[in-house]
């Protein structure tokens, strides 16, 4: 079971700071979250980067989610 932490921005759509989710990969994870929190469809969650146990992944589409992982969604950073 992975633990998803929501930023302040996403908490507006989930009403919770965190939740546990069973998901093998990113696609399942996103599906689960959308099922659980229908309001997330109004958020930018599907365009956000994700940190899996602290490792930042900008393009998570094909990512596998380890069991017991800590997941954080956040916005892409570029730079100068």
């Amino acid at each position: 079971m992975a633990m998803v932490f929501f930023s302040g921005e996403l908490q507006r759509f989930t009403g919770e700071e965190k939740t546990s989710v069973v998901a093998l990969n990113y696609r399942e994870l996103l599906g689960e979250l959308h099922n659980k929190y229908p309001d997330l469809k109004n958020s930018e969650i599907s365009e956000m980067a994700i940190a899996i146990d602290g490792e930042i992944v900008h393009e998570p589409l094909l990512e596998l989610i380890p069991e017991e992982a800590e997941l954080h969604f956040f916005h892409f950073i570029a730079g100068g």
Partner: protein
Amino acid sequence: MSEAKKFNFIGQRTIRPDGHDKVTGKANYAADLSLPGMIWGKILRSPHAHAKILKLDTSRAEAMSGVMSVATFDDLPSVSNEAIQSGEGAIDSLDLGRNVLARDKVLYHGHAIAAIAAKTVAIAEKALELIDVEYEVLTPVLDLHAAMKADAPLLHEDMFTQGYPEQPEKPSNIAARHELKMGDVEAGFAEADVIVERDFVTPTVHQGYIEPHACTVSYNTEGQSMVWCSTQGHFDVRASTAKLLAMPLGNLKVIASEIGGGFGGKTTVYLEPIALILSRKSGRPVKMMMDRDEVFRASGPASAARLTVKVGGKKDGTITAMQTSIAYEAGAFKGSPAMIGGMTAFTPYNCPNVYCETFDVVVNKPKVAAYRAPGAPQAEFGAEMAVSELAEKLGIDPVDLRLQNAAKEGTQTVYGPKLKAVGLVECLEAAKNSPHYKTELKEGEGRGIASGFWFNIGGQSSVTINMNPDGTGTIVEGSPDIGGSRASMQMMASEELGIPLNDLKPIIGDTESIPYNQSTGGSRTTFATGMAVIEAAQDVVHQLKERAASLWNVTPDQVEWRDGSAINTAGEGQMTCAEICAKCEKTGGQISGTGNVNARGAGPSFAVHVCDTKVDMETGKVDVIRYTAIQDAGKAIHPSYVEGQFQGGAAQGIGWALNEEYVYNDDGVMENAGFLDYRIPLASDLPMIDTIIVEVPNNFHPYGVRGVGESGIIPPLAAVGYSVGDAIGANVSELPCSPPRVLKLIQEKG
């Protein structure tokens, strides 16, 4: 990770491979290419900061002898507001088009309205005067206070603030609001023995690259069109230009010239789409070059910001809560680095209770562009000033307070992930032990110290190494080399291949000779493109071993690669890279290795700067008398260019803190659009900038590299600002600390 690995090339101070061309004047920059039949393009710019365009008539100009073509917004095929990749992530293509050539409304003084290509620059400039434009002048919105008022004149009638649970009813100049929080700041402040709360203001500043934007283009109706320009990302120039002109990517080849500085400012397009239209309509190659004045008025400054910062700490030095609210100017179109401000402000601290609220606000100034760690210097300026003041109030040494609360591996960030191994503690300890920090201050001198955090990114890079029959090779990369990165690429490839540096020639391939590469920015090049180089070199080594194996009639795993040669472990024999390459035609054809990565695991680079200043109490002039820049490089590939990044960032930050600012009159006209009045640091303004390279390896990179390009611009704002305050015994809250402002502080204090 190979901490104990012995390197042959990495860590040496080699001569850069492009160096000879650059010291002899042979290197070709954006304005250096001319083509047969070429004509010159110039731009008509708005004389108003905010106005409706009622009429735009170019017919008299078109009729003038020597004028070859004219471009206006109508020549841009209608684009939808899709996102296109650019230096700060994605930008809206409709906004981009309207920034390149104004439609309906001009939104800043200097906003491009129309362009003319003519046989000479003089004719083009004369013809611009024949363009008839009628304006309805509107009240300009010139700062954050004015822009955020409920009844402020609107830049965009259709802009509603994003980021509130409900869409607001009325449009606004506030494009977005972002909020980041963790823990409970109220409870944190309740625990604090001392609370510091202050407002800060930072000015609009420019990246100040010495090379103005320029390009030479040639449109080709049938085949491929060509753009030669100075950019940090030629693939992104291709994407933006093709989008605005509705061209398939394959019809456009973009060649990155040598680039004369960018610092984030050359991650978008200004001239390229216009030049292509002018070329298409005239059938001639077109060259365009901005004047310095145009660079200031119409290319990417960095956001001015206003912020409130509140930090609280206990007597024992524990920081209990940190809070900020920051508004950033985006310029004429949404998209300031506001959100990044919230993500970076307090990240150097391991504090459980953090709250950051940021606003992205449009004003009648040029659209901001990325500038070295975009968004972070403004936010961390306020944060570091407040932390230094907290240290003073608690009676704790400012380095010790930072050490006690320093972010380290496992620290929870406000933006989500926990930090991996980082080198902030090591940087702070190096600061404490530096000769600089141990130097006693004299009467009238002040000291400031500040930390800086930048994420660093990885991303997509592609590299091909093509081996030649004589055993030399070409490293084809796609990251424009802005500060000597070709030297690092050459070193990394030589390290893997074991052949001499000069046997490998790194070049920047154009958009058709190599797959897509993200732009040079985000401190990603040595890290991500470096990873692609290492991968490509390993691929070459792998193939060389296979070829050697087939020549010896053994299996590849019986061949070892050592110091540039294949060793036959199954029998006798050794073959050099050159010997294997010479026999390629007998073993299956020539060898090329590829590395295509979307690199992740970019390790943040923390920086700590110490600054001593001396203030002339009569004039308010500030002299920086001692400066030390300390930063974590993970592993310095080429120490000289790593130090160069620290020093360059420090100098830019010192300029930001002491002198640089856009000065506007009430009509929204910038009054100091030249290097004489917008004063970037001169050789005579600065002392030597001492550097200390800290190396806490980034375990995601084969050699431990962290990008170093950006963090260095963050600490100077507060290091200088606090030092000035310390010298004069007053609180600095507004940058730059220019003589009049400092004098005022001195007088107010009496």
